[in-house]
């Protein structure tokens, strides 16, 4: 089977340094535009955690030619959709509009790239909105477990806090900090614009060049130099809160998405948890499903130790986390669940996958990959996402290397991956 073909796209760079990807889809009645900035919560430091996310909110609060609320009204008024999200490694702003209004999001992105007003009058109300977003997440035990897992696993690297930031930093954030962050990271040379859908590429190119001609800001985003030292010992925490049965999540330091170990980490993620989100079309359509053929499902869910189980490799630019997790079935203790999770990890470091198991993993990877470029926004998203992770070649490199792995390679990779100390977080329902 062939490796999937990337859809036809054109690329150019504006004089200011903005990379542009244009993927025309003649039959599409919509245009999906995504502006990706190579900045996220890993660019923060204690005292300004949450700045990237909060700034993302403030970029909807007005810019040189759009008063507060006008950006929202302009896009939604067309029937379109707009949103944004902040990750540890990047921030993305997306708009989907009817093809007749294709130029509108481009004009907005050009205006707010360097002209965001970040009005002080909006800061306090947005502070409580961001705190409310955090409280909403804290109602979810999964969020609390994940936050604690990262806080324990990383002592040095900014991956130790999540994109929402610490509540105390949100409370003390001021306009100067946000503006400083904006001026340091928001400029054409630190961004990529992706446009997919029903437009004429020549017309679109000329419009983009015109709109971004005067958008200038020299940014020199400092490298994130923090490197997490190897974890030598086991770290653990137990949380208590409302809930039904225990949740256990165990994590290990893991390779970054561009590393040589990444293809193996991806196959191990598929073997243990059933899917590699980077190559799972359903992941982007927000349909999750159980994976009865995965090792964790068979050993924990089929045996009624857990009601759900899974695996997660964070596809991050710098070394991140590989984790396995499960939610206990009624009557099963956290300790038993933890032992069962670790047993599955131990197995992949000791035993070889059979040739048939590996063949099935490879086949699934390929057929999944063949469906990844379906839908206008999927195409725009994927182009920008791959670029943000290191480049479009990443997809083919990961796939071709993963397909070449043999059982012994996978076991060796597992031994490397799970060699260091692990971090375990248990969530126990109140009263346990």
């Amino acid at each position, binding site marked *: 089977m062939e490796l999937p073909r990337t859809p036809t796209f054109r690329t150019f760079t504006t004089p200011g340094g903005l990379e542009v990807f244009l993927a025309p889809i003649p039959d599409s009645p919509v245009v999906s535009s995504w502006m990706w900035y190579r900045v996220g919560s890993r660019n923060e430091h204690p005292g300004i955690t949450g700045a990237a996310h909060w700034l993302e909110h403030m970029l909807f609060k007005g810019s040189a030619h759009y008063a507060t609320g006008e950006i929202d009204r302009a896009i939604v008024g067309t*029937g379109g959709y707009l949103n944004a999200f902040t990750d540890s490694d990047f921030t993305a702003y997306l708009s989907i509009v009817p093809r007749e209004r294709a130029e509108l999001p481009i004009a907005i992105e050009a205006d707010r790239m360097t002209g965001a007003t970040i009005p002080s009058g909006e800061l306090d109300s947005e502070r409580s909105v961001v705190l409310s977003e955090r409280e909403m997440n804290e109602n979810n035990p999964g969020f609390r477990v994940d936050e604690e897992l990262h806080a324990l696993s990383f002592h040095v690297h900014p991956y130790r806090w999540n994109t929402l930031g610490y509540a105390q930093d949100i409370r003390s954030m001021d306009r100067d900090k946000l503006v400083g962050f904006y001026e340091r990271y928001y400029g054409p040379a630190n961004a990529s614009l992706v446009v997919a859908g029903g437009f004429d590429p020549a017309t679109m190119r000329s419009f983009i060049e015109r709109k971004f001609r005067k958008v200038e800001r020299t940014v020199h985003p400092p490298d994130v130099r923090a490197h997490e030292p190897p974890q030598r010992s086991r770290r653990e925490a137990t949380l208590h809160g409302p809930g039904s049965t225990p949740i256990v999540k165990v994590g290990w330091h893991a390779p970054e998405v561009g590393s040589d170990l990444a293809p193996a980490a991806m196959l191990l993620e598929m073997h243990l948890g059933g899917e590699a989100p980077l190559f799972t079309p359903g992941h982007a359509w927000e*349909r999750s499903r159980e994976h009865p*053929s995965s090792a964790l499902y068979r050993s924990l869910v089929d045996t009624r130790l857990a*009601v759900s189980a899974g695996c997660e490799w964070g596809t991050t630019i710098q070394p991140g986390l590989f984790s396995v997790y499960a939610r206990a079935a009624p009557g099963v203790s956290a300790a038993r669940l933890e032992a069962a999770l670790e047993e599955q990890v131990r197995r992949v470091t000791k035993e070889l996958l059979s040739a048939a198991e590996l063949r099935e993993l490879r086949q699934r990877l390929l*057929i999944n990959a063949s469906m990844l470029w379906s839908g206008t926004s999927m195409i725009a998203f994927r182009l920008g996402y791959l670029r943000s992770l290191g480049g479009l070649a990443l997809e083919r490199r990961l796939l071709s290397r993963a397909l070449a792995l043999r059982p012994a390679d996978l076991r060796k990779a597992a031994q490397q991956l799970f060699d260091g100390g692990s971090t375990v977080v248990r969530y126990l329902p109140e009263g346990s």
Partner: protein
Amino acid sequence: MRSLLRVERHDLGGGVTLYTQGAIASSRITVASWISPAGSSRDPPGKEGLAALTGRLLVTGTRKWDKRELARRLDRIAATLSVDVSWDGVTAEITGPTVVEQELLDILSEVVAHPRFDPAEVVRIRTAMEERLARDASQPSHRAERAFLETLFPEGHPYHRNPGGNRRSVRALRPRDVADFHHRNYRTGGSKIVITSRSEERAVLRAVKARMPPLPDGTTTRPSLPGRTPPGAPREIALPIAGSQQVEILVGGIAPSRTHPAFSALRMGNEVLGGRPILSRLFQSVREQEGLAYDTESDVTMLPEGGFWSAAAGTGAKTVRRVLGILQRETRRMMTQPVSPEELHAIRESFIGSFLLHTDTPLAAHSFADEVATYDLPPDHFETWPAELRRLTPEDIRTAMAEHLEGWARPLVVVAGPPEGVRSIRGG
């Protein structure tokens, strides 16, 4: 390419209807669903959760394939199979590459008609459902919604019950109950097959005819509905949940069913109140002006056997009364003052324009056809509905909301969350 907004309807005999729709540009994916009225409204008394358990078991093996083999088949073609059980129906949906469309339909037919109902799987899924119920009981949003519906609808009404059942009823469900439920309720009559695909219409029709789920003839029986909730039910309910962080507030009352002639006016009014993202009054007042909540919205849910309306927000413990005041104020304003023509125009055109967003992803496109099938709408519904919406005047909308959304003058209020946040509400 076939028109995306227009759905084609075909009578396949035996009470089965097929709906087909063209795929979006650049899609290599087929989505197929089978819809039946065998939802939780068909649960026998004392066996609440049975429809949900039956639905979840469809994906755990069939007569031909055990669970592992079914999973392997799906994995091999990168297909996703899911089942959703609501009060009024069950939907089994499969998604996968169009190049293996016939295999997708084979699998869908097999899981619907010949589920295995392995006793060990019945126990496992039942246990998972019990855990889910316990988990939901600790979540403010679920607790608030449950109390809200249990108060609005009288006992015995399908919408009073949780489609997932309750812990006692679920624990008592047996493999035999599941097989009986499937036999009684999974029938050809009233079932619908919906397909979104880039394949030629005739090819889809041929493929479906050759792979119809071989179910018994006949239809499932509609539930009988009890009378109204007796007067004297509480109007304010406070649900303290220790350890939670945010308070969920729900305000609302009874609404008419989906077939009510005021459907379009009520739907439009809801868009103005809190349905339309960003432009709605609740979003603007609660979030943008006051900064009191990250999430706020309203809904008018009109279903086959009745309906309900709600205005909701999640907020901090100290701001509950303020947010509640805004939800009630904005609701009253909808009923007492006509929306301005300018505001109506902006929100209506945004709403109509948003139909186009369904051409963005394969599943969004499929949801169009699903809606046409579920509510027996005309095949060209999404082409003709805009004209109907544009005929509505501000007074049409105000009158519809004031007359048909019950209890707006004194709505039911439910708050759930940290004890210090719900203390200001009287009920318990």
